[in-house]
């Protein structure tokens, strides 16, 4: 969205987060699905336009990477903003079971069949 970020001062991506970084947001895996709960934001919450846009997009239950890509925001920035929405109960996050951790023959075969069918 804001193309200037690429060439701007390095800290500018964090301007929208008020300088906060995502160090303590390890609950938001790259492929975690974030979904709007439909709960309206509390009146006292100061949401920036990025929060509002992301919240609206979360109605489609995207993954964290998709939110970052959709709004062309760096992953760390998106994690902070999603973390705000999470903290206020406006979204829920769900980390899908990584197939790699439970290598299940049936699922791997399903992946193979799915790729063949593409």
């Amino acid at each position, binding site marked *: 969205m804001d193309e200037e*970020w*690429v060439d701007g*001062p*390095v*800290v500018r*991506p*964090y*301007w929208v987060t*008020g*300088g906060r*970084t995502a*160090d303590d947001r390890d609950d938001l*895996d*790259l*492929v975690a*699905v974030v*979904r*709007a709960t439909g709960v309206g934001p509390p009146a006292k919450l100061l949401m920036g336009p990025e929060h509002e846009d992301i919240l609206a997009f979360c*109605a*489609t*239950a995207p*993954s964290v*990477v*998709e939110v*970052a*890509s959709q709004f*062309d*925001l*760096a*992953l*760390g920035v998106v994690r902070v903003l999603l973390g705000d929405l999470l903290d206020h109960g406006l979204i829920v996050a*769900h980390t*899908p*079971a*990584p*197939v*790699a*951790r*439970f*290598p*299940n*023959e049936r*699922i*791997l*075969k*399903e*992946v*193979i069949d*799915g*790729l*063949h069918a*593409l």
Partner: protein
Amino acid sequence: MDSMRSDGATDIGMDAVMAVKILVAGGFGVGKTTLVGAVSEIRPLRTEEALTEKSIGVDDTSGVEGKTTTTVAMDFGRITLRTGLSLYLFGTPGQDRFWFMWDELAQGALGAVVLVDTRRLGDCFASIDYFERRGLPFIVGVNCFEGAQVYDTEDVRIALDLDDDVPIVVCDVRERESAKQALITLVEHVLLTTRPAATVGSAL
């Protein structure tokens, strides 16, 4: 799919959501973006790299308490195999200085396709070392570039010092079928190497 998730998803329903993460690695210009694009819509993804001291003092970093970052661009693609089962492809950043990103990408990944250009074999050494060290299953895709000498895959195996069980496929990832085949080869390789573990897992 979306409507199902937004109105009907119960916690149990969300628990059934599974993600398969596959990394596409290899040296500069070897065809990572092309592979992702051949099978999926390519989407840009940005992340940040921590900067070293050398840039501090040049930029005003007071707002982020010394956390200075620069942006790294990479590709990702998503293929929905069915409701609740998605395949995510990540093209890993080629430059060595972006190793920090690999750890996050490799976490929970099923495996990797390492693309190789036979004119510049050495470019993939770092990727192969990384996946071997992490114990992440990978296959090697030998991309056929015009003007490149055609090698026997066993010569490539020797040149890369690959274990006998690492599959090597010759591909042209500009072709969708070829790109698909590389991914299928990887998943079949994982299936083969994890079969004993899978039996144990199902008994738990």
